[in-house]
């Protein structure tokens, strides 16, 4: 019983957001530290550029643009799932310890492993991913009650506690480390997109390709989980099983994104929320919108961050936080 107009509105929004992403990507490809003028973009793209132009576009800008879009999408999808299974509009991948877990793992790995610059870069996402998974596992265990199962509210509280504890731990580790390492870790924590290279895209893409359709496949169940526990049980949702599967999905998505982008918060909070206010809370409609908003937001934030302060810019995570924090306050005030 879906209003045709609602579906039509969603289709229009999809087109608008896709165009927005393409335009922003185009602008993003044309501006930056090295010059690559807009009228040279298309020729370079088609293989007519100079060596320098091709290098800037294909080895620097394009992978970064694609990785930011994909990571933003993964974070938005993760946030959409988390908000529904915890029935909490303020939920974000950060709260189930993704950022802090991945961050702690990266710090420990970086500080205590003898570093070989070549291979270690490609190990970091795996380390971050494992760290995030282990943290999520502990948070899950601690918010699980044998009699009533997973308690969504407890999950949020335990998650916040874990984030704080792990952040403290990281500071302890960092305080005894040498300057260069501290710089890298600090950059990682604030979400400086560092994994901007084609192999990282290949590492991130499969997660989205598999888990996006999978989440849409679960949309029906998400609708009911988001509604009300007794109603969901009464309608025949195996809520314990579905919650665990969906929680794992959200963890995998966020961990895969954060492992290449560093700790980025707020995308998973904002994107689903904006999407819901546009097309309503039915997952079939809002999830595709949420994903596009997430991808665009992170791309937009990174483009600004890259260009405001020469030559290194400010990390995307900081720009996102600058937009996200006021939004979060607005949400709290509205409640």
């Amino acid at each position, binding site marked *: *019983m879906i209003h045709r107009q609602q579906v039509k509105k969603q289709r229009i929004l999809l087109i608008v957001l896709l165009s927005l992403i393409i335009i922003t990507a185009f602008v993003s490809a044309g501006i930056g530290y090295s010059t690559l003028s807009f009228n040279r973009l298309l020729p370079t793209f088609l293989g007519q550029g100079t060596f320098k132009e091709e290098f800037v576009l294909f080895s620097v800008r394009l992978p970064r643009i694609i990785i930011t879009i994909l990571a933003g999408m993964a974070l938005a999808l993760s946030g959409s799932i988390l908000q529904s299974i915890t029935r909490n509009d303020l939920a974000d991948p950060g709260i189930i310890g993704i950022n802090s877990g991945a961050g702690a793992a990266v710090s420990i790995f970086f500080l205590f492993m003898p570093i070989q610059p070549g291979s270690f870069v490609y190990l970091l996402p795996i380390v971050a991913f494992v760290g995030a998974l282990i943290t999520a596992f502990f948070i899950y265990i601690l918010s699980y009650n044998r009699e009533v199962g997973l308690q969504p509210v407890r999950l949020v509280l335990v998650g916040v506690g874990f984030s704080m504890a792990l952040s403290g731990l990281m500071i302890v580790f960092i305080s005894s480390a040498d300057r260069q390492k501290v710089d890298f870790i600090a950059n990682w924590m604030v979400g400086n997109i560092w994994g901007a290279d084609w192999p990282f895209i290949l590492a991130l893409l499969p997660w989205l390709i598999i888990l996006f359709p999978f989440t849409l496949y679960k*949309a*029906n169940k998400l609708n009911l989980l988001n509604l*009300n526990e007794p109603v969901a049980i009464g309608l025949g*949702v195996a809520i314990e099983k579905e919650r665990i599967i969906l929680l794992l999905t959200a963890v995998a998505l966020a961990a895969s994104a954060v492992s290449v982008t560093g700790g980025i918060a707020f995308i998973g909070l904002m994107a689903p929320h904006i999407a819901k206010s546009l097309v309503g809370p039915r997952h079939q409609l809002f999830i595709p919108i949420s994903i596009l908003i997430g991808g665009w937001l992170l791309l937009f934030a990174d483009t600004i961050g890259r260009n405001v302060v020469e030559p290194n810019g400010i990390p995307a995570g900081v720009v996102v936080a600058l937009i996200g924090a006021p939004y979060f306050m607005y949400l709290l005030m509205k409640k």
Partner: protein
Amino acid sequence: MVRLYTDDLSIGYGEQLIIKDLSVQIPNQKITTIIGPNGCGKSTLLKAITRIISHQSGAVVLDGKNVAKENTKILAKKMAILPQTPESASGLTVGELVSYGRFPYQTGFGRLSKKDYEVIDWALQMTNTSSFKYLPVDSLSGGQRQRVWIAMALAQETEIIFLDEPTTYLDMAHQLEVLELLQQLNKEEKRTIVMVLHDLNQAARFADYIVALKAGHIVKAGSCEEVITKEVLRGVFNIDAEIGIDPRTGKPMCISYDLFKGEK
């Protein structure tokens, strides 16, 4: 042949049992009402029967099968439950909410079939909510909202419908409207209705079978005439009630009551 019954059902955690060894049979195609004072376990019983909470021992049996072990989606095609004052997701429209009632019949990505649309339309019509179809549920009044939730339970197409205090927070006219709708469903559609009610006279007026609970056990279960009596009400609510006959319905009713203060 009774389709649904509980067998020595105990509910609670550890040593603290809310309900102990309770056996009750729910008559088919009748309206059954569970009454009792606050904290007697009437809502708990309803939740345990509908598998929303698990029980410690005993069994709930539906069509010869143990509910705790049956596939939950199969059960959802047999019994629907409307919890007490459920909340809807903000912005969800009436049509969308009612369409969720089709969940047990959906597979895969869950596109609604032609049959689904027909059932949803029928449920909206039955509950007189068709005109709200495209409005957000949270923009409706309490009475309208309750009818929409009943429509969702109807879209589930189950023979048995459970309701936990469906008239709470409604004014007198809207309470009656909801109860008459349930009565109509029972009479015309032969649905078995099981509900928890607070109001004794409403229970007496609409129920075919009343289960009176106190402190987790049944004081009396039977027809209105058997349950709405001076003795039973004293035993259940600790009140000294004056029972008369409702001049309009011919059912027993509690005309006036005082707190029971020992033997006179």
